[in-house]
């Protein structure tokens, strides 16, 4: 870890002024990813601006009938918040599928969105990496790529976004409230993270002088029919090979609304509205779920060690939609898949 200066932000405006004044500064909140990356010499900020004491820690209902989550609400508090457990259990489930109890106690809601890929080459400063050092190359494309993306990849980067929480937020159609020097704006969740293209060093459309202040959930929470299914090498405390957030609104056995987002397969949470559209109006059965899965994977491209993910994702989508339709969501505490 390089030496750095430390400062606290007094309020959101002060945080924005401080970050705008120093291009080598970074915000720190939970710190679970940033401090690790600093120890690895991947992130090298010369100043940390501590935003962890800002008053962004409430979860409250909005006038529009949704819920607004302060950017500094710890992941564990959010997962166990009565409003989230009751109205957005898909979000609770996805959060509890990620990391460990200690990390969830530290990690903030806003920081979860901004965590960086766990690609081994990104972490290893002895190797090239277009995300870490633009235009240096991507060893993952012809290297160890078992954990890597199968959708939306580019010739520059095949890294995945590591978050579970964000997969649920994509499915729920959350929005991200941010503040910058020009004031406040709101970013639709689908537009928050980016695909790598030829600039994989840029993970999201958040500008470097902007701060996330809140996540807003719309009224529809899919509390009756949902599942977050995470497939990984260990039953707990491992990143997803493939994860699926499935949410349905049913009228009898007919699908009124469907939401489908995947983790572990792309540079961003992968929501496919074409597949959701195909499900709308159909009877909730395996045939419909398989046609949706085929659509999601229509452009999937495997690499030497991760082609298995295409079939795994197809099956995981069908399984998660089946769990959602049957109202038997994946349990995050005993992990038995029903």
């Amino acid at each position, binding site marked *: *870890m*390089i*030496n*750095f*200066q*430390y400062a606290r932000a007094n309020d959101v405006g002060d945080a924005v002024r401080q970050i705008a004044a120093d291009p*080598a500064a970074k915000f*720190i909140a939970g*710190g*679970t990813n940033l*401090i*690790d990356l*600093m*120890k*690895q*010499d991947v992130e090298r900020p*010369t100043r*940390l601006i*501590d935003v*962890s004491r800002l008053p962004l820690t409430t979860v409250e209902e909005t006038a529009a009938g949704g819920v607004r989550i302060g950017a500094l609400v710890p992941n*564990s508090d959010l997962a*166990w918040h009565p409003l989230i457990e009751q109205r957005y259990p898909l979000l609770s489930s996805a959060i509890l599928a990620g*990391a*460990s*109890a*200690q*990390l969830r*106690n*530290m990690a903030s809601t806003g920081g979860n969105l901004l965590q960086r890929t766990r690609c081994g080459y990104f972490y290893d*400063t*002895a*190797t*090239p*990496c277009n995300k*870490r*050092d633009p235009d*240096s190359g991507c060893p993952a494309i012809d290297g160890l790529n078992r954990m890597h993306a199968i959708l939306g990849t580019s010739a520059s980067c095949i890294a995945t976004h590591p978050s579970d929480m964000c997969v649920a937020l994509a499915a729920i159609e959350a929005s991200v409230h941010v503040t910058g020097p020009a004031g406040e704006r709101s970013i639709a969740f689908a537009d928050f993270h980016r695909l790598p293209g030829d600039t994989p060093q840029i993970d999201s459309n958040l500008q470097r002088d902007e701060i996330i202040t809140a996540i807003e959930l719309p009224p529809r929470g899919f509390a009756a029919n949902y599942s977050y299914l995470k497939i990984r090498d260990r*039953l*707990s*405390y491992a990143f997803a090979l493939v994860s699926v957030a499935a949410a349905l609104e049913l009228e009898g056995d007919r699908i009124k609304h469907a939401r489908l987002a995947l983790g572990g397969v792309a540079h961003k949470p992968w929501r496919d509205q074409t597949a959701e559209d195909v499900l709308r109006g159909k009877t909730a059965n395996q045939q419909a779920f398989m046609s949706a899965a085929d659509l999601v994977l229509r452009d999937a491209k495997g690499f030497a060690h991760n082609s298995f993910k295409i079939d795994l994702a197809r099956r995981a989508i069908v399984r998660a939609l089946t769990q959602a339709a049957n109202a038997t969501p994946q349990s*995050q*505490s*005993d*992990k038995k898949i029903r």
Partner: protein
Amino acid sequence: MARTSTAIPSRIPTPAKIRVTLTVNGARRQIEVAPWTTLLDALRDHLALTGTKKGCDHGQCGACTVLVDGRRINSCLTLAVMRDGAQITTIEGLANNGALHPLQQAFVDHDAFQCGYCTPGQICSAAGLIAEGKAKGADEIRESMSGNICRCGAYPNIVAAIQQAMTRHD
């Protein structure tokens, strides 16, 4: 090209040490630390509380688990300066006037360790688990303790020890 130099950019002045006040195991302690001193290093190197262990130093093993304001966290992934004013409980603070904490007694009763290196983190994590009040049965305890690695593989006895302490706690 891969980055080859890790030299500190010359324009950064050496930051001054920062005074931090922590209440550690009930006692108010003042230390002066560099901004990059983790809570783990502050406990071990500045306060001589070496019960909290440094395992991976990357938040993967859980050996450094302590309770901050009653919640279990990885002390290797937080800066001491960020915790100014916090209440910290380490393994040294669990016993009460020489009487072992119920979790410490349960780990002894169930032989829930071999080498013992992960044990302070396991016990602090289990104390956090019990305070959370979410995990109940063995499956839930295993899931909730997945952030604590035991390379000796004492897991079955660790789960049994936690179950014993939970029963006494209730």
